[in-house]
């Protein structure tokens, strides 16, 4: 997807990308990104949580306005579960092959 962002940006249309895979975004380098640390499938928020979805989208547009550094990734402050990162730790255990 970052490749599409780069092609569109090069054609003269500014892009803003969301991401829930910070390491991949760091390699592919879309022109501007906001990182939402949620499980895949929820990049713009939880189901039926209109307020959260709207805040994430507005944060993305704020980043569009303020990023001046090509390839910058802005970390958004949202947590999937307040004070509980067990989903991340479970995924990272699988990343270690076990």
């Amino acid at each position, binding site marked *: *997807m970052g490749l599409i*962002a780069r*092609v569109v940006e090069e*054609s003269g249309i500014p*892009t803003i990308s969301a991401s829930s895979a910070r390491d*991949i975004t760091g390699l592919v380098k879309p022109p501007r990104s906001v990182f939402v640390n949620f499980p895949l499938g929820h990049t*713009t928020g939880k189901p039926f949580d209109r307020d959260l*979805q709207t805040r994430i989208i507005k944060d993305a547009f704020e980043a*569009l306005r303020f990023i001046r550094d090509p390839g910058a990734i802005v970390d958004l402050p949202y947590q999937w579960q307040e004070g509980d990162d067990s989903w991340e730790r479970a995924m*990272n255990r699988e990343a270690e092959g076990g």
Partner: protein
Amino acid sequence: MSPVRYVDYTRAVFAAQGFPPYEWLVNGPPPFTPFDKALEDCRVALLSTGGFYVRGKQDPFDPEKNDMGFREIPGDIDVSDLAVSHNYYDHSDADRDVNCVFPIERLRELEAEGYIGELAPVNYTIMGRIFRRTALVNETAHEIAEGLKRQEADVFFLVPA
């Protein structure tokens, strides 16, 4: 916070399936077009990699891999007409509420609120898991870029699933 290491995760999954390690693309600095317009004057187009298509009117994506096509989703689509064809992310929440990865209803609200100028008449969905990078850039991405020009989009918002 320790973000999930998806590069390592993908390597571990591929190794467990007996495939050679996937080599992620490492890009140089991206192109950059300054954004200098007021958002409230902008026509915003949306893309999602969530594999959405209009049920009964468009073909589903190949849910496995390398579907190079894209679907054009009208800005005024009734979201209950959308379906997902994608085997590589858990779309159980997106099935119930497309706005989790294709926030088209939220953008319509932001248009009504005057936060953005308007949602583009044509928006885009693709299926991820495309390993044919050259074709993705030279065909799919360029066709989408041309579509954005044709409809005079000012901003492109991309949401991966």
